């Protein structure tokens, strides 16, 4: 993705195997950006989690319902340029404030509840927005031009 062409949009049916499709697009999109291999890897993991949640919790794995993914370079984020990935579903939303820390002793042995935590750890910033008529949008951001 060259610097000026700062947006790619992808829409997939809500099936887990389509996560690989998102990964291919993401990999291609990140190719020309200044991230090291580790950063690319972890961004990929964070996006996996966002899309998995949209498919599972948002669209309840209905293959006819779309998950939309947008990849762009946003100016201004963090006072500089940032990679911005947005994942949108058609679910009823949830309260991110009520999601516990998976490292709490009470949660440590739970088989789920680590997805949002992964996203927070591997990105510089994550933000949830909910449409007035439903639908969850999670925006993942990673600063550009800083390695590691």
């Amino acid at each position: 993705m060259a610097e000026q062409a700062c947006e790619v949009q992808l829409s997939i049916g809500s099936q887990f195997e389509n996560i690989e499709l998102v990964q291919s697009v993401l990999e291609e999109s990140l190719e020309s950006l200044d991230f090291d291999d580790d950063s690319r890897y972890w961004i990929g993991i964070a996006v996996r989690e966002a899309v998995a949640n949209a498919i599972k919790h948002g669209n309840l794995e209905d293959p006819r319902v779309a998950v939309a993914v947008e990849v762009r370079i946003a100016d201004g984020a963090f006072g500089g340029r940032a990679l911005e990935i947005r994942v949108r579903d058609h679910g009823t939303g949830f309260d991110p404030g009520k999601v516990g820390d998976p490292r709490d002793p009470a949660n440590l042995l739970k088989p789920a509840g680590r997805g949002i935590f992964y996203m927070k750890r591997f990105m510089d910033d994550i933000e949830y927005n909910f449409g007035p008529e439903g639908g969850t949008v999670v925006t993942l951001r990673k600063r550009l031009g800083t390695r590691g």
Partner: protein
Amino acid sequence: MKATIRERDGVSIIELKGKITIGVGDVAFRETVHKALETGAKKLVVNLGEVTTIDSSGIGELVAAFTTVSNRGGKLRLCKIPPKVDDILQITQLIQVFDIHDDEDEAIAAFTA
């Protein structure tokens, strides 16, 4: 993703390869663990040497396997943790939950120690 199971010195070794991720890899792993438990296995080693990617569902399955095996009076150990999986275990603080070994020999030896 590929999950295979084999026996060594009375220990069931589950070898995972590729992506342990939602919808595919996580399910295959779960089924393999259940298959081992059905044959009465109580000593399990999961070899993660060839795992390239583990998402939160994959990690969740590891935790679930650990709990299931423990609840049945068995023991599940991990070995050959690749650096990226190690990072995840550190970050999630699951590193303290699992019994982790360098390789299969060491993991098997731990059962007789």
